[in-house]
Each structure stands twice: as structure tokens, then as C-alpha cells.
């Protein structure tokens, strides 16, 4: 039988180097949803760090090879809002006027951030979690204001049995990561982070959930340094497997 969908996984540089277990979970989760997952070889980084620092010629070359790498894929799944935004929002402009422009536009339209793919494309919101307790959701800036998504991750969290979603004051405020900003102005970046973590800890959450490896690196970095009992997790780390009990909730029969 043919699968429900085919998807290529874009692991992202931070996901590849620092959070491979998140990528593994996503691949297994997608397979459990009857999605055939491929992983085009030769992936590096989407080029967002180059772009944001103003090195647009280099960013365009990185974009060009990413566009070609994913040329044959159907849907492309990205576990970070910022990288998904880069592909969807900036690739077409970076490659405008070049022979790759059309391919860049096509890639932009079939690239999905993970939570959006689950909720909006596959229309699956019921999962089971091995993590229990109170969770707070942190809106990553690029997912929230770039891709205008605040509901999909929250819907996924709300439907998890054993998980209580608590209100995070200032959930839409930046965590202070900002890519190279975090090391160009580390004191300011950390000061913004401190504010975020104070809100996280005051919320009573056992863990704070984000959909962006950059935010996770920042949040975990700060929580670890203050030896907090709160954990920072990627959304996928709470989605252990689809729940098959409700109509439309699980893999297709």
C-alpha cells in the first residue's frame, strides 16, 4: 500500500549537531503516521546565520544548493520555525533572477514547519506523550511573527493526556537568542533570557516547550546554568506516538 504522504526531512545544522535525538523522534513519528520519510544526503545549514548577518551572496549560494538538494522531494519538514521561515520567506528573494528562482519558489511552497505539517497538512492533533506534568509553550519569534503560527503547537500540547498547559506570561517575547546576536552582545542576550526564564519559573511549569532549536539552545543554556528544575524540550520530544483512539487521530487504516 502506498503511504499517506512522502516527506523529506531537513534536519537543520543545530538539529544535526546538538539535538539528533529530536530528529530521530520526528522521523519515527512521521513513519508512525504513515509518512514515508527520506533524508536527502549532503545537508548543511539553511544559511540563515549568513543572511541575518548581511552576507547575502554567501547565503544565496547556500540557498541554491539547498534548493537543488530538495528538488525531487514532495513535502519538506523542518523542525525549526526560523529555518522554515528562511526557506519559505527568503530563498525566493535570494535567488530571484537566477535559474533557480522557480525551484526556490516551489520549495518555499512545499516546505513546512513540523507543527504546521502535523496540524494543517496531515490534520492530526492527537498524540500520546511519555512526558507528564505542566508545560509552558514559548512562541519562537520566526514561527509566531514570521509564519504567523501560534495555534498549531498549542493544539498539539493541549491534546496530550497527562500534560497540563500553563499560561506563560510574555510567551510571545523573544528568548534573546537571535543567532549571532547571542554572542555579539552576550550580556544583552542573557539579560533578555533571564527575563524569559523568570517568567517560565513563575509559571509553575515543569518544562518549557519550543519549536526552534535556536530557542532551545538558549533556554536550555540558561536553565542549565541556573541549575533549574525546569527542562526545555522540543515539541517533538513530547509527541511520542499518535493516539489511535479518536476518529482521524491516528494513522490511516
Amino acid at each position, binding site marked *: 500500500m502506498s503511504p499517506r504522504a512522502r516527506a523529506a526531512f531537513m534536519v537543520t545544522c543545530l538539529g544535526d549537531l546538538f539535538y539528533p535525538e529530536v530528529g530521530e523522534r520526528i522521523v*519515527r513519528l512521521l*513513519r508512525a503516521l504513515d509518512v514515508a520519510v527520506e533524508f536527502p544526503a549532503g545537508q548543511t545549514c539553511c544559511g540563515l546565520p549568513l543572511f541575518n548577518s548581511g*552576507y547575502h551572496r554567501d547565503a544565496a549560494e547556500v540557498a541554491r544548493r539547498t534548493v537543488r538538494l530538495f528538488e525531487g522531494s514532495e513535502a519538506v519538514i523542518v523542525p525549526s520555525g526560523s529555518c522554515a521561515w528562511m526557506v519559505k520567506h527568503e530563498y525566493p528573494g535570494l535567488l530571484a533572477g537566477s535559474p533557480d528562482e522557480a525551484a526556490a519558489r516551489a520549495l518555499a511552497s512545499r516546505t513546512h514547519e513540523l507543527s504546521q505539517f502535523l496540524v494543517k497538512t496531515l490534520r492530526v492533533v492527537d498524540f500520546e506523550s511519555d512526558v507528564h506534568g505542566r508545560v509552558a509553550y514559548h512562541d519562537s519569534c520566526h514561527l509566531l511573527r514570521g509564519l504567523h503560527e501560534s495555534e498549531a503547537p498549542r493544539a498539539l500540547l493541549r491534546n496530550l493526556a497527562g500534560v497540563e498547559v500553563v499560561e506563560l506570561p510574555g510567551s510571545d517575547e523573544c528568548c534573546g537568542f537571535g543567532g549571532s546576536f*547571542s554572542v555579539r552582545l*552576550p550580556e*544583552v542576550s542573557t539579560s533578555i533570557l533571564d527575563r524569559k526564564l523568570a517568567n517560565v519559573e513563575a509559571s509553575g511549569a515543569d518544562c518549557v516547550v519550543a519549536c526552534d532549536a535556536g530557542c532551545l539552545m538558549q533556554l536550555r543554556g540558561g536553565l542549565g546554568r541556573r541549575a533549574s528544575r525546569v527542562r526545555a524540550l522540543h515539541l517533538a520530544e513530547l509527541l511520542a506516538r499518535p493516539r489511535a483512539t479518536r476518529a482521524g487521530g491516528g494513522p490511516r487504516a
Partner: protein
Amino acid sequence: MSDTAPELATPFRERAGKALKDDFLQQALEIATTKFITLRREAFGDFPAGDALRDRARAIKEATLQHLDRYLDQLVDNVERLGGHVHFAATAEEARDIILDIGRRTGARMAVKSKSMATEEIHLNEALERAGITPVETDLGEYIIQLAHERPSHIIAPAIHKTKGQVADLFARELGRPVPADAEALTAIARAELRQKFLDADLGITGANFAVADTGTIVLVTNEGNGRMVTSLPRVHVAVMGVEKVVPSMTDLMVFLSVLAKSATGQKLSVYTTLVRGPRRACELEGPEEFHLVLLDNGRIDQIAGTLREALYCLRCGACLNVCPVYRQIGGHAYGHTYPGPIGILLTSMLKGAPAVKDLAHASSLCGACADACPVRIDIPRMLVELRREVSEEKIAPWSERLAFALAGRLLRAPRLYRLGAPIARLLQRPFARGHTIRRLPGLAGAWTRTRDLPAVAPQTFQERWPALERERP
């Protein structure tokens, strides 16, 4: 005269670091920006037409800039028809000279001022003092700043960096008697001190929030009533405004007024909206004998066709400052220029060129909160990226940074080389990693680890795990 503030002698990162350690500043910023954010959110929450009006306001700005010369001509004609004088200043220096000339010719000894960022931009107060004309700021915030010999740290709340207690101390020192740290009492004191100044002043100097081309009306949006006194009591009124502030008609003005106060202070309208049309006419009981409008270019016109064009839409509401995570941490003074915050970086580049903002261009996490809050939807993050691009491509950025990014660009295009990165990093991190965490790194990498843990490169990257994961396939 130098446009450079003395604080610019220290690098931006140090100025920011100093601000982070200033407990008074931190306390004042936290209270004020949080209050502004809440008020703004509530104001637009109660106003369903808000989003459409923001789009409309943006469209008017776009269209007006396309024909700026035509609207300015119309404005000039109408102001002159009403008996006013219009002056065009290409630079800050020209603007100062025009105003000083007016002061000398009219024998002015004292000038009362209502709040104006344009006069801050041209450093007018220092020039007036040198010419023997005493400037008196009559906006409460500006009055405080003037007493403290400081500069505004916010576009609409110039003394936002001061706590009530600090203001009380300042007033006590000035008056030589104890003063309670109570907003109402402090306002009453300023009011009493300023009353006589309004009556004594020869010159009234204001900015302008808008100028309506087809009626020749200058519009001042204020909350304290001082604007009305400044424009009606002294013999001469001088209004200074950037050329981009012209709007075609009164109908257009209404669109801007409907979003400006909501964005700035969360008010439906400001307490006073003062419309000034030329000098006092026959049969009128009050108003100045002379009215002058100074139209200021100072780098603006060049940007109509430049990358910073959208920054010319700015209404100076300050909403982007209040929501900016960086501004909220460091306040306005650390930026070191007349206009602070995210929009301030763009305006500073417009006024002084990209080299002046080579560090400030990076003083943003690009979180996008500014663009979201902007009443005319200026894409500030996008233009900050464009500024960064200029800084890198014009080789304003240090060579070491350009080399590092050039190497990174190469590496990200060479997957075989890239894959070697992980094993090399695992070797290098060995002395520093404890389990999955690195708590301390030497040199430049310490910028992260001084305050945050860094994840160690995984024992097996995702790419290294993929062959096994692929075999799992059902």
C-alpha cells in the same frame, strides 16, 4: 558642531553593559515599557478597525512620498498664504542658523519649547544657549531632562529612564527644598515653575507631528497643554519638522490620529491635538505675530529612493521601543544617538550614514516585535538586515568577521568538509565537555559559555545516525 555624543567614545557593547548594571534604569524601564505595552494592546483590542486603519496609514505614507515635492509645494503655498514663512534646511546646521537668525532679528532672550525630536536631532538647545537665547523645555519629561543636563532616552517619554525618586531628588536640588516623590506633586511644581516662563518667552519653538498640505495646518499631538501655550503666548512661533511629516489632507490626518495615540500611549486620542494655521490674524485674540515653518531634510530626501525609505513612514510613536527586548534591557541612552530603539538605528543611519551604526545594526535579535507594533507596519527587522548587508558588503565590518563568514559560507556549501566538522569538534570539545554539556570555553567562544551552558556536539550526529534509522523502516 559635532553631532557625536560624548558617550560614543565607549563601544556600544560597553554602553549596553553599563545600562544592564544600572538598577534604577532597570527598574524604570521595566515599569514604563510594561505599562506602555499593556496600554497599547488594550487600546487596539477595543478598536476592531485598527488593523485596517494601520494599512490605510501606511498606504497614505507610501503615496505621499511618491509625490513629496508636490505636497511640500502645496504646504509652502498654503502656509505663506496664511501669512507664515517657510524655510528649507538641507542640513542640521542650516536649520540651526535659520532659527538663530529668527531669534536675533526678533531680539529674543528666552525660548519656550514643546517636545520635539527634530530639535533634538539638530541639537538646537546648545546652539540657542551659545547665541544668548535661553531655551526652556516645557514638556514635563523634557523639563526633567533639561534640569538633569541629559538627553531624551525615549521618543515620547524622554525621562523614561528616571524613577519618581530620582526626579524628586532632582527637583529638590533645583529648588533647595525637600520634594515628595509623588507624580502629582512633581507635576504641580513643574507647572508652577513654568507658568511665568510662558509669559516671559519671546520665542515658542515646537516640532510638528504632521503638516496638512492642502490647508497649511501644523498639527501638534500632546498631553500636557504646554504645546498650546508655546504656540499661542510668545510673539514668534517656530515649528521644525522633517519633510516627510507632510500629509495631503485633513481626511488623511484623521487616519493617522486614529492610530498614533493608541500606539504611543494607548489613548484613543492624546489630551490635546493642536492645529496651528499661520500667525495671528486680524480679529484674533491670541497667537503669535510671526509664524515660521522650518522644513528639515538632513538626509531624508536621499532615502526616498534608498533602502531606508520605509523608515520615512515613522510617526515617532515609540511603540517599537517599548516592545523591543533590547531597548527594554538597555534603555535609550546606550544607543548613543538622538533616536534610540529599533527605528532609531534606521534613522541614525539615515542621518549619519551606515558606518555610524555598524555595531548598532546588530543590536537586535530580529524578533520582529517592532514590526508587529508599528502603526504603519515598517518592516524594521528587514531593514536592519539590509543595513547589516551594507556594513558587510561595503567592508565596514571588521576584516576578521568578514573572513569568518566567508569561511562559513564556503563550509556550508561543501558537505564533505561540513561532515568532518562534527568529529573535529568532538575532539576539540573533549577537555571542556562534561557529558552533554560544555560549561566553559576559552576565547571568543566564551561569549556564550560565560552565562549559558552550551550543548556538546552529539556523540553521533543525525547524519551519522541516519543509516541505522533508515534500516528501521517498516
